[in-house]
């Protein structure tokens, strides 16, 4: 059972206090979008074995969403970060590189 640190309240909490929200950084496609773009937004996910950026909600705590970078195979957590970001922050990417290449 995973432990993740909620960046909003600073607590490391177990999975039962959280709710999963699927892949992060999915770009919303609105009424003007093409069928392929809308399909991508609504249905197509990476389902990566390895590094994965994902959404979590601190459901039994502060109620806020956050994002996590996690290896889906080893369950290593490279970091958690604000949901109010369009892409993974540099320090998270650095950490992933360090752990994967180093």
């Amino acid at each position, binding site marked *: *059972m*995973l*432990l*993740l640190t909620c960046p909003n309240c600073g607590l490391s909490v*177990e999975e039962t206090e959280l*709710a999963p*929200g699927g892949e992060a950084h999915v770009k*919303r*496609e*609105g*009424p003007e*979008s093409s*069928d392929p773009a*809308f399909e991508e*937004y*609504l249905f197509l996910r990476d389902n990566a074995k390895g590094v994965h950026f994902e*959404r979590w*909600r601190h*459901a039994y705590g502060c*109620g*806020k*969403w956050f994002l996590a970078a996690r*290896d889906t195979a*080893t*369950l*290593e*957590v490279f970091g958690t970060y604000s*949901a*109010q970001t369009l892409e993974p922050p540099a320090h998270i990417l650095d950490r992933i590189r360090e*752990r994967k290449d180093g």
Partner: protein
Amino acid sequence: MSTRLAKGGRLINRDRPLGIRFDGRWMRAYQGDTLASALLANGQLVMGRSFKYHRPRSVMACGPEEPNALMGIGQGGRFEPNRRATQQIVYEGLEARSQNAWPSLDFDIGRVNDWGARFLPAGFYYKTFLAPRPFWKHVFEPFIRRAAGLGAAPAEPDEDRYEYTYAHCDTLVVGGGIAGLLAARAASERGERVVLVEQAAHWGGRAPVDGVVIDDLPADVWVKNAMEVLEKAENVTMLPHCEGSGVYDHGYVLCNESLTDHIAEKAGPRQRVWRVRAKHVVTATGAIERPLAFPGNDRPGVVLASALRDYVVNYGVSLGDRTVIVTNNDDAYRTALALLEAGLQVPAIIDARGAADSTLVNEVRGLGVNVHLERGIAKVIGGDTITGVAVCLQAGEGAVLQEIGCDCIAMSGGWSPVVHLWSHCGGKLNWDEARAMFYPDPTRPPTDGNGEGFVTPIGAASGALTTAEVLANVAETMDIAAPATEAETPAPLAPIWMMPQGAGPELRAKMWLDYQNDVKVSDLRLAAQEGFESVEHAKRYTTLGMATDQGKLSNINGLAVLADRLDESIPKVGTTTFRPPYTPVTIGALAGEAKGDLFQPIRRTPLHDWHDANGAYWEPVGQWRRPYCYPKPGESHADAVAREVKNTRQSLGILDASTLGKLLVRGPDAARFLDMVYTNMMSSLKPGRCRYGLMCDENGFLMDDGVVARIDDQTFLCHTTSGGAEHIHIWMEDWLQCEWWDWKVHVVNLTEQFAQIALVGPSARNVLEALGGMDVSAGALPFMGWVEGRLGDFNVKVYRISFSGELSYEIAVPANQAQALWMALLEAGVADDITPYGTEALHVMRAEKGFVMIGDETDGTVIPQDLGLDWAVSKKKDDFLGKRGQQRAEFQKPDRWKLVGLETLDGSVLEDGAYAIADGTNDNGQTNTQGRVTSTYYSPTLERGIAMGLVANGPQRMGEVIKFTRIGKDPVAARIVSPVFYDPDGEKQNV
């Protein structure tokens, strides 16, 4: 014959005799005995029957790895099957029953399976499933049902209670042998929070039995000293009777503590499951001795050498007077020493090895014990009891060289580290060729959230088998000085997987690998021959290591036989997967407190107690309980619903609508936000007014509906369905936090702050006026308006909305005042015959009006346009959630199933979920369908059945008669009509 020895038994208290009952017979035991040792002390060698062949079996082991001595313990609501007698501590009055034997343990009819063993080979079940059907039904099934299964399931509800507890620590040490104690002390001295668990009742593990000396102290004394230090340390929690059951991700470990299983007094919880979060887990789980595969190795009286040592030293019991020891390694020689010390005889040691030259072996030889090298056992001699062994050359095919008289055989096939906990979460293993064992590969541990290894095996669990190796290993791992002990140099082990090596088919069919599941060398070889070459396939085909064994005793021997047959190396064949729990955990323990009233939370409205006191028949609505109806004495539920509907339509009804979701949405961007989450335009709603709104997901599917009231320019109150309150709140927060985080909107869930009471019917206004304080006239509070103010003694918001088609007010009041307001309304409504109504009357009335219900008319594949709700989907807005989804081609098709009303020609009520039948059949030969019933009721108002349904192109087919399925009956004809059955012009609600 097994018996209690005149002296000895370090764990028993001979001054404290106890009475226990086994299969109805009283027996004498001592405090500290296990059930197994107590039975042996009473001459009860046979303790169970094997699973498939019903062969008589005795103990093989002395701990959790015991495969044979499974018992039913306790009675009635405290009965539990399949407890290992080797772990069950006795107490006064303990009741134990043998299992899998019928009619009795001594004479078991199932034994015929044994004589017909060649008809029950590996894969028996699978092969049987292919038999002709009648044969299966009349011959195999009754037979298998009688024979299969271990113990009988308890017949009564569990009387005991159980609990969980959460614990957090730096280091969790699993295993309280010398390695575990030393590691716990080291971690404690570093200032870490330590939890130390030990599955047995006693600490110290094997060391005291094996005569180990540490720091010049006998192991018993060293252990006692170590315990004293740990008990004094404030940062150490010590839990005996507590098994490390499973290791999970990120340092989560389940440990199962037994609280009353070993005592007569059953007060308090029976077991406590510890949910431990450990930064680091140290597994000091020791090692398990392996049996040897020789013909007759399952006979009562054949026992693991180390287990026999345990019985003699710990409990002062023996399995026999004359014990032949058979081994492939040095360790079994310790058993010879223990037996001789206890005054028992060891006629011979049969050692399969070519040479055995070590201090230990020579010490035993020095005591006059005959050691037969390069020999094996060809046969176990005797009827119900062993009278001797036939000795053969290990290298041969089993030709008997001599017979040696004995009544007990102690065997040792070497030791396997207990790697279960290490492996549960992905720790990998290496193969040690010299010791013929898998051991944890320290370079490939299970990893935690930081990607670092979080489990460290120590002592025997790491592969260190001698005391000196164990202490050195712990010292190195924990970075402390190693206690002093004498180093040993055992003579090398010889990997022996079959005895004798050249045994033919007849002997191989008498060599057991898995005692519990009756898997023999011949079965594994047959599996390989039939193509089940993967170890995981072979396991399932033969049932090797299934049930409670889980790779404890049978694993390595089975793998070795498979590898030999496949001509592969053992590491190449690999092991099966080790999965938690280490030993079975009772379901009650896993349920913890969640039983009876605590099984799951039931949500109660502020008026729950009133409903309960006034005869409500409850309906679960999610976790809520809502009154379905309020039947009067002698009244059926259907009659009650009809009365409630009629009374409401004719005069006045009152409904507890508190479960409705109430979300306060507030901020400068609130209107803009609601325009996005609702399909309708909400920004144009005027303060003081209400609007019915729909919410769709991005697929375009209708997800929730409800009335939105605009409080002021920046504030809205959004009502959701009862089931939707939480997830719509989450849905809104999701969009605000993760998509439009620069929008200034707050959402506050006020669902539980307010009770909501619906006052419904032509007399509703009279009652509000009687309470006074508020102008509720049609002019002041028109349909779809709302006001805030004082009604009688209450601060309320009154919404003039209707889900029934009647004049209706929904009154929101702070929850703590709900009961008082409800009573005031009841009192004021007496003259108008006010009638509380439940959810079913609510449903009937909304269906009579053709109002859709989320979850009835919708199922996650329905868009608002399918329900004729196009009017509530804005065409002016550029965007809203679901808009793009609804533009997809699938939703433009003319033959989509759309909402209509349905009236049977005979006035009967359609079946819920019934399908409308279309011509022809599909590719699977099933009748084609053209629609289905979504809501169906008897309408007391119209006095006939009414229904709503989705029918292909339905709205264009008004008046057409189609047929609907009925279960077990002929289809019924129904006419397609408007879904609004009652007051189509809405005159009644708008007065």
